[in-house]
């Protein structure tokens, strides 16, 4: 049974957010017998309640609370109040994610050493190596049931993948397969096998895709050591005179402010909300916000260099049938500056339904150039570009000076300007994607601009030195030893890979560290 904990219980670990980081950390700690309260801003929808309809599902799951944007990225113009396409619900964005589960490459932990200093980029090496994270990657892959690991067969290729594979072969790409996916190709861990339904982004109604909602959280609750409190929006983290955090103030479902006392607080609200909360927790002792002596909280916001390429063919494809992210090409993920940029990118199949294709193909576009593309919707194949973007101090989350949410908390402003490296990479990827589809007979290709961000990273970065970042290699704040960051905001740099597997691996590792520190009475 799930344990309800008293608000005054100051022995609990309070985790803010129930997604890949928070949900995993909560279960890991509960399995070790540690009492945990997860505060989740959104509601709880079980997977049977998910909706096979893009706009209706968006209304059910998406984080649509107001945010503002600035900077030269096109999202600021097209979706000024929707910088990110992430989730406000129990399970966080693991309800919405596509399931791609890739390890970082070795050099991606050492970007400053590998790429060197780049004008306008705040590169830094991670305070850890791939070798240190590998055992946790292995645990995470087993936990998520990642295909093509642990003798789990790959998913069968759908039509969209078959087009990608045919093009990859024509272009001479060597590493193209149906991906390392946290989607069951056969029943495993009480989860169904994928039924090729599509709608991965709308929450898997079969529960075939791993999500903390129905994987980690129920397991944690079964220990009696985990309580997930939905509709609990964290507003402020309190601390005592010694500088240790003592509790979290949150608005409950009726908007009433409560304080949950805590022995330890772990922030896992995604890379926009996590720094927003730390900044909003400023006090006379910490006037720039919690854990912010470096001034790095909210800075180095990364969103991966993305974009899509759709190809139109003279014969039907029906790309929306089956797994949304149904295959990957990894050949361009290497670091090869001879291409005109540092770092690399993955190409992964993607499809949108007609309603979202209309919204995202060319936001603001109209007329026959736009509509003749949609006329051939069922003849389209699609892929998504996901590459390493450069951290920049100017790209940052700040508290809006005037606009406040319903609880009186300043909304987050998300500022982003592309680095010239990002632009060069995106253009290279557009060219490769178009060439790939043309090689299999596309009559038209559509280089499609980035969608609102799904991979939000870096705003509470890890660093060796306290002056360079917010947390150490365990996600522990340099300034406050019982305050942790447990989501993608702790990434020092973003890598070319979809971030969830790394977030989960870091959470498993962090749980070990927290349990050790608690037994040693260090925190």
């Amino acid at each position, binding site marked *: 049974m799930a344990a309800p904990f008293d608000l005054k219980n100051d022995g609990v670990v309070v985790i803010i957010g129930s997604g890949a980081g928070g949900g995993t950390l909560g279960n890991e700690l509960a399995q070790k017998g540690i009492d945990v309260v997860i505060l989740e801003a959104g509601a709880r929808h079980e997977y049977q309640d998910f909706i*096979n*309809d*893009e*706009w209706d599902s968006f209304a059910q799951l998406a984080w649509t609370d107001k945010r503002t944007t600035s900077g030269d990225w096109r999202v600021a113009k097209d979706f000024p109040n929707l910088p990110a396409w992430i989730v406000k619900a129990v399970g966080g964005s693991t309800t919405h994610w596509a399931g791609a589960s890739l390890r970082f490459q070795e050099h991606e932990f050492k970007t400053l050493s590998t790429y060197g200093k780049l004008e306008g980029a705040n590169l830094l090496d991670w305070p850890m190596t791939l070798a240190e994270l590998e055992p946790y990657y292995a645990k995470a892959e087993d936990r998520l049931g990642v295909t093509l690991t642990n003798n789990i067969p790959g998913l*069968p*290729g*759908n*039509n969209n993948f*078959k*087009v990608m594979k*045919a093009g990859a072969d024509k272009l001479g790409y060597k590493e193209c397969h149906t991906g390392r996916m946290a989607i069951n190709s056969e029943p495993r861990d009480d989860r169904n096998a*994928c*039924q*090729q*339904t*599509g*709608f991965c982004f709308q929450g898997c*109604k*079969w529960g075939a895709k791993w999500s903390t909602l129905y994987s980690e959280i129920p397991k944690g609750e079964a220990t009696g050591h985990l309580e997930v409190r939905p509709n609990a929006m964290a507003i402020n983290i309190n601390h005592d005179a010694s500088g240790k955090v003592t509790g979290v103030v949150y608005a409950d479902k009726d908007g009433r402010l409560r304080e949950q006392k805590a022995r330890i607080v772990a922030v896992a609200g995604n890379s926009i909300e996590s720094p927003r909360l730390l900044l909003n927790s400023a006090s006379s002792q910490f006037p720039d916000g919690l854990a912010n002596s470096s001034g790095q909280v909210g800075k180095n916001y990364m969103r991966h260099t993305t974009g899509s390429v759709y190809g139109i063919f003279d*014969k*039907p*494809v*029906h790309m*929306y*049938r*089956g797994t949304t992210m149904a295959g990957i090409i990894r050949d361009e993920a290497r670091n090869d500056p001879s291409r005109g940029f540092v770092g690399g990118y993955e190409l992964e199949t993607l499809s949108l*339904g*007609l*309603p979202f*294709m*209309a*919204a995202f193909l060319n936001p*603001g576009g*109209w*007329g*026959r150039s*736009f*509509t003749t593309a*949609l*006329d051939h*919707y*069922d*003849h389209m194949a699609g892929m998504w570009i996901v590459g390493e973007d450069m951290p920049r101090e100017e790209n940052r989350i700040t508290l809006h000076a005037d606009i406040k949410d319903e609880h009186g908390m300043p909304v987050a402003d998300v500022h982003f300007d592309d680095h010239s490296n990002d632009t060069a990479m995106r253009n290279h990827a557009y060219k490769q994607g178009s060439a790939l589809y043309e090689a*299999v007979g596309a009559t038209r290709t559509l280089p499609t601009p980035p969608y609102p961000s799904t991979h939000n990273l870096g705003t509470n970065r890890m660093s060796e030195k306290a002056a360079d970042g917010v947390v150490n290699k365990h996600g522990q704040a340099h300034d406050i030893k019982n305050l942790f960051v447990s989501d993608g905001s702790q990434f020092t740099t973003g890598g070319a890979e979809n971030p969830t597997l790394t977030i989960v691996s870091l959470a498993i590792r962090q749980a070990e560290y927290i349990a050790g520190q608690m037994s040693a009475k260090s925190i």
Partner: protein
Amino acid sequence: MVTIYESKPVHETTPGLSRRELLKRGGVGALLVISGSAVISPEHAWGLETSALKPETMATLIQMARDIYPHDQVPDKYYAIAVKAHDEQAGKDPAHKDLIERGVADLDLKSGKDGYTGLGWEEQRVAVLRGIQDTPFFQAVRGGLVVGLYNQKQVWPIFGYEGESYSKGGYMARGFDDIEWL
């Protein structure tokens, strides 16, 4: 209240009114006619009643919707459904009513003596639209169409999109990998 209704052929619902008279009364191109507070498609047996906006305004919006997102295989009816929310909103919000009525009046003014719908070619109408594409009026109409047109389940089959699939067991046995031409 705005309703799209399936009407009987127009000569049956408006006795004594010949097609020729109808066209004379409120011809909108050759396809849509205005009768009372409704926009009617005699050829396709549907009508759209307006309550806040002038029916002529609604007819212009329908033409404008098609010119913004032209899909020759999509009947007018779905464009009418896509813009009818402007009539509902205009009923609740005088500022929105003003935005749309003034926007359409301005569009007509810029289109010459026969107004926007009097321009015979899409190319001519699009040229006028290009001139106003940054106005709040145009953006309100275009923005509303993105969801209003493309989120109609009835239009999805026209584009070959099959929609919900869970209740049918997904595509495992229904062609997720049926591509044959590669």
